[in-house]
């Protein structure tokens, strides 16, 4: 397959020259995923913290459900959102189908359980150490949640990274609710799927490498912050 390495090199050249369409696709991927992760983090931190601290009937059932949802197949999440946003569906009036906003919604559904479950675990671990002292100091349950979340902030970076990894790499959800429309909802993963189906394997691979590189950069940056923090015993 000699043609493969040549095609690969040509594709990398296209990348090196910052092809505008490529920039557009990368930009959309990052915008959708980072927005989804930001929203999912807000929800997930709160959910995980509350689950760790508050005692209420059905608590373990909710925790089990969250853990199970971590394994929700992206294509299923996409289907659910599609049925909701379809013009024949309950939220059709919002006209969100085939837009980046729909993709963000689908990814929020995928990422929130991960962030929440990992947050819950982190907070439970911290609570083991802090429970009596915080009670003695007179913290209310709500205050305990915020205290644990801030105290565990560097550990929680891992939770956010896990969510980011899940979102940036998935194609099932964004394909269905986004429609892979050129210039509108085409992300890196849907572009890879398209190029693969057109037989442009080398280009698809090259795009995949970029995706990996981006994920690597994000991971290294955040873990670097965590390493710095451990110097001050904050991690």
């Amino acid at each position: 397959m000699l043609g493969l390495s040549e095609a690969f090199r040509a594709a990398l050249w296209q990348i090196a020259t910052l092809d505008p369409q490529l920039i557009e696709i990368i930009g959309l991927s990052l915008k959708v995923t980072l927005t989804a992760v930001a929203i999912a983090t807000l929800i997930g931190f709160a959910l995980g913290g509350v689950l760790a601290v508050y005692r209420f009937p059905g608590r373990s059932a909710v925790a089990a459900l969250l853990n199970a949802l971590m394994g929700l197949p992206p294509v299923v999440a996409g289907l659910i959102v599609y049925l909701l946003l379809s013009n024949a569906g309950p939220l059709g009036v919002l006209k969100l189908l085939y837009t980046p906003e729909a993709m963000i919604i689908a990814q929020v559904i995928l990422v929130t359980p991960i962030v929440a479950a990992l947050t819950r675990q982190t907070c439970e671990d911290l609570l083991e150490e802090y429970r009596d002292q915080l009670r003695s100091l007179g913290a209310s349950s709500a205050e305990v949640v915020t205290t644990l979340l801030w105290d565990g902030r560097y550990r929680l970076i891992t939770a956010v990274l896990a969510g980011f990894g899940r979102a940036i790499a998935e194609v099932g959800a964004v394909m269905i609710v986004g429609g892979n429309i050129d210039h509108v909802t085409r992300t890196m993963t849907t572009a890879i799927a398209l190029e693969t189906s057109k037989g442009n394997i080398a280009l698809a691979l090259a795009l995949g490498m970029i995706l990996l590189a981006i994920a690597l950069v994000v991971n290294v940056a955040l873990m670097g912050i965590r390493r710095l923090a451990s110097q001050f015993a904050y991690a």
Partner: protein
Amino acid sequence: MAGAFGRRDVLKLALAAYATLALAVPVSRAADNFIIVQSTTSTQNSGLFEHILPLFTKKTGIEVRVVAVGTGQALKNAQKGDGDVVLVHSQPDEEKFVADGWGVKRYPVMYNDFIIVGPATDPAKIAGMKQAPEALKKIAEAQTPFASRADDSGTHKAELKLWHEAGVDPKTSSGSWYLETGSGMGATLNIAVGKQAYALTDRGTWLAFANKGDFKVMVEGDNKLFNQYGVILVNPAKHPNVKAEQGQAFIDWLTGPEGQAAIANYKIDGQQLFFPNARPQS
């Protein structure tokens, strides 16, 4: 000795990052002036849309957003009102779509043809045959691998029709020599090439396909391989959200002289892929 990031720093960093991204990626959302066309993967993979749609947008200012799925899914999506126009290639299904009231009127647009492609070694010895059903019969008898889309698409339905004419039911051999991929045209061709299997494909996708390996065109030219495309406006009476005016403008352009010329002009390696055959507008 200061500590690491404080609360304020984290927030500032996050806001700056998001603002940069939001500004750097202006997503084309020219208010409401766009239509959604449910079409097929084979049409998209051929590259036709990249060629003709910009011409339409330049003339009318209407953006065309194409969602490419299989014919069956395209029609079902349109039935749910998730599109303004359908452009597919399965006449009986299109006519049923209109008859059931989901579409307003079916206009023929263009045709291309199907071809049977296969490995250069041609184990079933069908190269150059003029009758498609006969070629399929030989494949079944030789039990050489054949990759089918098996996804309810126009191509799939055409393929099943040919098997029927050959008097063969390939589903009974599903999993042995008959490979039902359940995928789009491109994915199916990838599998065909990978497994050295024959496949039925539309010429447009094949010409644009970049992973041919050593595959050649085995059978072409049979009348039965004729592949007609139709375009339909989704019925606004059933789905008020349909952009009827803009959708009809697209259909009129596509079946009118400019659109038809644009279709005829689209070539790969000097070969024309699609042949316009809209009826002259009265």
